[in-house]
């Protein structure tokens, strides 16, 4: 064997062994591969989920948006509430939570089983949180083991009963008892049930990686949305409404740095429906621009939004600078200045 072939053989051995080890890890590690932005734990969500949305809390907290608007009165951050929460549970959401995923079937009216479920990834002091729940909610909270996992039940047996459980060291699940138990079962048995929903997983794969917030919804969710809306300028006397073309799917992604940017891609039935929907959105933007005489910020706001169609897809993109957002928010109280390294 020549020297070069020996090198090729050695290299192939390293790659082959590495691939085998990786396959072993994939098979043995209960945290199976994730889909799109979803953490692997969220694959235990029910297969009939119609929408999933998520927030990257780390990125949110580090963003200029949070520094500017989150910490003001009424903003996202609540220093006193967070301090109190940390004292009781050891959990500081700004520091300890990495990601929040909310999923559901989009029809809470049909019963608690249809309501949303929340999966929070981060670092938790489970003992302290458990103690806080048990002491704080005395009387209304009970707990039991489900598939070996401790589950805290709130108002057990009553309408709207909820549950909370840690499905592993880093993951907290909240929602209705039935939904939480279904997630625990799927997780313990290693069933990536959400992967059975090919439509939704395909949409999840389309979410731009690294997005601070995102949302996907499939046809069954969007079918429940209103199909018409009042036409601009119409009133109860005049009547008149605009028919909204039905959407087959919706993918929304957004980032907070260096500006607030959002992109929504809706898939319509066909090209004509997509153009129709794009025209409706453009019409509303034009109307908003007409108001620019009274409020000049509106002009900047509407010019930051663009609408485009690509066959049966409508893409609405918006990019708002923080100066623009601040100008729309004049009553803002003094806030903590952004840290110098905030991007």
């Amino acid at each position: 064997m020549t020297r070069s072939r020996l090198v090729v053989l050695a290299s192939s051995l390293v790659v082959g062994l590495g691939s085998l080890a990786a396959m072993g890890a994939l098979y043995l590690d209960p945290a199976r591969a994730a889909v799109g932005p979803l953490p692997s734990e969220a694959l235990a969500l029910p297969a009939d989920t119609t929408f999933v949305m998520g927030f990257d809390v780390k990125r949110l907290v580090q963003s200029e948006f949070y520094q500017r608007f989150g910490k003001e009165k009424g903003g996202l951050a609540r220093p006193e509430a967070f301090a109190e929460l940390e004292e009781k549970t050891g959990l500081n959401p700004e520091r300890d939570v990495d990601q929040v995923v909310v999923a559901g079937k989009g029809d809470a009216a049909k019963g608690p089983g249809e309501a949303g479920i929340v999966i929070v990834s981060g670092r938790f002091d489970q003992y302290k949180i458990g103690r806080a729940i048990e002491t704080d909610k005395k009387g209304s909270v009970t707990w039991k083991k489900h598939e070996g996992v401790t589950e805290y039940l709130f108002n057990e047996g009553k309408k709207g009963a909820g549950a909370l459980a840690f499905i592993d060291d880093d993951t907290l699940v909240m929602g209705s008892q039935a939904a939480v138990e279904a997630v625990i079962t799927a997780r313990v048995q290693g069933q990536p049930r959400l992967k059975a929903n090919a439509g939704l997983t395909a949409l999840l794969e389309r979410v731009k990686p690294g997005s601070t917030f995102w949302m996907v919804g499939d046809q069954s969710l969007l079918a429940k949305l209103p199909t018409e809306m009042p036409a601009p300028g119409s009133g109860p006397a005049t009547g008149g409404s605009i028919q909204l073309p039905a959407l087959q799917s919706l993918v929304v992604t957004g980032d907070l740095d260096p500006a607030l940017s959002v992109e929504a891609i809706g898939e319509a039935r066909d090209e004509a429906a997509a153009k129709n929907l794009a025209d409706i959105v453009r019409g509303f933007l034009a109307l908003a621009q007409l108001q620019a005489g009274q409020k000049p910020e509106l002009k900047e706001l509407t010019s930051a939004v663009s609408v485009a169609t690509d066959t049966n897809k409508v893409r609405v993109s918006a990019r708002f600078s923080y100066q623009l957002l601040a100008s729309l928010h004049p009553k803002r109280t003094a806030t903590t200045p952004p840290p110098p390294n905030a991007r």
Partner: protein
Amino acid sequence: MRDTSKPVPFLNAARSVFDLTLEGMVWSRRSLLMAILLALPVLFAVLYRAVLVAKVPPEVTPFDFYGYIVALYYVRNVLPLAALFYASALIADEVEGKTITYLLTRPILRASILVGKFAAYMVATLTLILPTLVVTYFLLMTARGLTGIGATVPDLFKDMGVASLSLLVYGAFFALLGVLLKRPVIPGVLFLYVWELVANLPGYLPRFTLTVYLRSLISHRPAQEGISGLFGEVLPAALCFEVLGALVAVFLGLTLWIFSRREFVLEQ
């Protein structure tokens, strides 16, 4: 007994050229330089395990580091450079060393020479690059224990695939430069570090670069400063495969066509 009036069968000739080229390629100064470049991420991973892992905040995961290494070091720099150094020299080195005559006067098809050489280039570069990628991955991902490693395994395989595709597409392009130009390295460097930066501009211009298709195929999106951070576009995977496949076919087809017809005049 072979009929000497006919050229050596295509595959036999290509295999002979492959063996000859591979031996020269693996044991060369180029490979030494590439080995040094490729050792850097492995050294970083060792440093991370030994020192940095205790000092880095827990929210910065080893997978973040691995993502940076793959997206910024491998896909953007080392893979195109490896392709430039090896593929542009496939024919240019034979011309410069005046050994092309010995190849062209053999009873073999010119296409078999190019196919053999290009196959040797792919094997040599994959031999150097894939093990370092795998070793870097395991060194980094196991630094904080084995928990959660399964979720990142698909990314390793995806990265290995994209690395191979990068070598193929850049290799085809630089092989074309190699048969077109006498000194392809400077235009190649300009292509990589001037033209490929267009990938960071808004609009349709990025679609005229190779890197935008390759970076769209990996999942790692390290935050970047400045204009590239603003406009980094991610294209659909199907489009990327279609465009890259078409480009490989066009580049290799043109390379074969030019090499089969070109008359090489050696400097005396």
